[in-house]
């Protein structure tokens, strides 16, 4: 039983990382109707910038905050000078451009910082807290809590603020949005900037655990995509819950289903996606809209 609870808690913590990337994907999708495959890459770049600052003696919290600001600017700049050329055209082209961007960012990180694993300091202590005979690291708890807070902030943004409403309107129909006086281009930049901020938070949470490499979030991106499809593209709460389910099931399956084990656990979310999409094509929590990937 203790092992089981341990696995669940660890699963929630890794699931939270997938959740953060998934939230970023949802945000860009809400604002532009696109899936940004470079989301993980941009988050890695943010983590490297925080790491570079700490290596120069900047306190960790400040370094992470600086990387968050930088990420906002990077996200906005990517929209302004790269994606804008493609947003009005064929969505498939735009998605391919984001895949190209991922490759480019990974290459830049490798070239600037080498492909060696770098140690990234942790925001939370590794000390364990014990309850019910289970010991859980403060890092697991902290990571999960941060993501819960971010999830509610994002849900509140979309459902309860003028900015969130404007972002959604621009995604649905940019021309009508402009007819109502919405500054479409600036809103798109803000949407991409905020998504990059979410990525930066995820990067800072996961880097201590995985150690920093240019491809650090490649796997997380795959899981995040699975969470986005499972949770429904329109629901921040939905994708976070889906990401947790994936994180937990993946951990449990690896231990309790011998056939799967650690080598095959990456298949778990895809089996889950397959089953869910057959039963509920709009995802577990999503509204019925067409997924445009």
């Amino acid at each position, binding site marked *: 039983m203790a092992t089981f609870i341990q696995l669940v808690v660890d699963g929630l913590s890794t699931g939270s990382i997938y959740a953060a990337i998934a939230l970023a994907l949802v945000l860009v999708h809400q604002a532009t109707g696109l899936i940004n495959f470079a989301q993980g890459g941009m988050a890695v770049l943010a983590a490297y910038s925080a790491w570079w600052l700490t290596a120069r003696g900047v306190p960790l919290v400040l370094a992470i905050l600086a990387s968050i600001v930088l990420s906002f600017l990077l996200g906005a700049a990517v929209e302004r000078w790269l994606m804008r050329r493609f947003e009005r055209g064929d969505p498939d082209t735009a998605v391919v451009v984001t895949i190209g961007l991922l490759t480019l960012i990974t290459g830049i990180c490798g070239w600037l910082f080498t492909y060696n694993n770098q140690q990234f300091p942790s925001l939370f202590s590794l000390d364990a807290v014990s309850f019910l005979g289970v010991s859980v690291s403060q890092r697991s708890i902290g990571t999960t809590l941060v993501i819960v807070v971010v999830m509610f902030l994002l849900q509140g943004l979309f459902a309860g603020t003028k900015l969130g409403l404007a972002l959604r309107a621009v995604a649905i129909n940019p*021309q009508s949005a*402009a*007819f109502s006086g919405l500054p479409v281009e600036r809103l798109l930049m803000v949407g991409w900037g905020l998504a990059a901020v979410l990525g930066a938070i995820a990067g800072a949470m996961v880097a201590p655990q995985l150690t920093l490499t240019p491809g650090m979030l490649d796997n997380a991106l795959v899981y995040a995509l699975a969470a986005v499809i499972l949770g429904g593209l329109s629901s921040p709460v939905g994708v976070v819950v889906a990401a947790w389910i994936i994180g937990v099931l993946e951990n449990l399956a690896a231990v309790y289903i011998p056939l799967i084990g650690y080598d095959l656990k990456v298949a778990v979310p895809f089996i889950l996606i397959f089953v869910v999409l057959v039963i509920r094509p709009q995802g577990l929590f999503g509204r019925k809209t067409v997924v445009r990937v």
Partner: protein
Amino acid sequence: MTLLELEDVTAFYGPVQVLEGVSLSVPENGAVGILGANGAGKTTTLRAISATVRAGGRIVFDGKDIRGTRPDRVAALGIAHVPEGRGTFGDLSVRENLRVGAYLRKDRKGIASDIDYCLDLFPNLQDRITSNASALSGGEQQMLAVARAIMSKPRLLLLDEASLGLAPSTAKAVYDAIRRLRVESGIAMVVVEQNANLAFTLVDSATVLETGRNVLTGTSAELRGMDEIRRAYLGG
């Protein structure tokens, strides 16, 4: 006082010129119709005004040449475009659509009372206030499109074929409401319609376009009396 003046306006989709020189004059509080067959350039004329097509010539609103401004800036000047096909936000609720319409406004009380006004003008929307726009009937979507435009408190409304695809009774209901809006608010209007009978219930004067040019302009009474208008647009 003239609110909007188009002088010799041209427009292009890529290299293709579709307006060859259109003129139009809308007085303050006036309503002017644009009639014409499919493909005559009616929609493009509205798009030239709202800066969503590349245009030449002079487009003067409230004394300023606004040609070449951005669409959102044109909206901010007080021009609300209700596009052909309605352009409502399908995944947003009726109330959210109306709030997007009020994006540029800061007066919370005024926004709330204008939402009430829209629901009074279009009672069909009352029960649908929390429904997604995509779940509305065609007539309700058209009403929502007009209501969204009203929410920006415009000085000029551009209406593009508000009757398109609607049953005759629904189309009449939409035009009745717009006529009431005109009387109560004094908002000036440019009304594009293929159904000239319907248009003449709303506008004071109209111009007829053919292949991107004005071919006839006159008051509603004058145009209604002309044989060629009767034959081409009034069904006899």
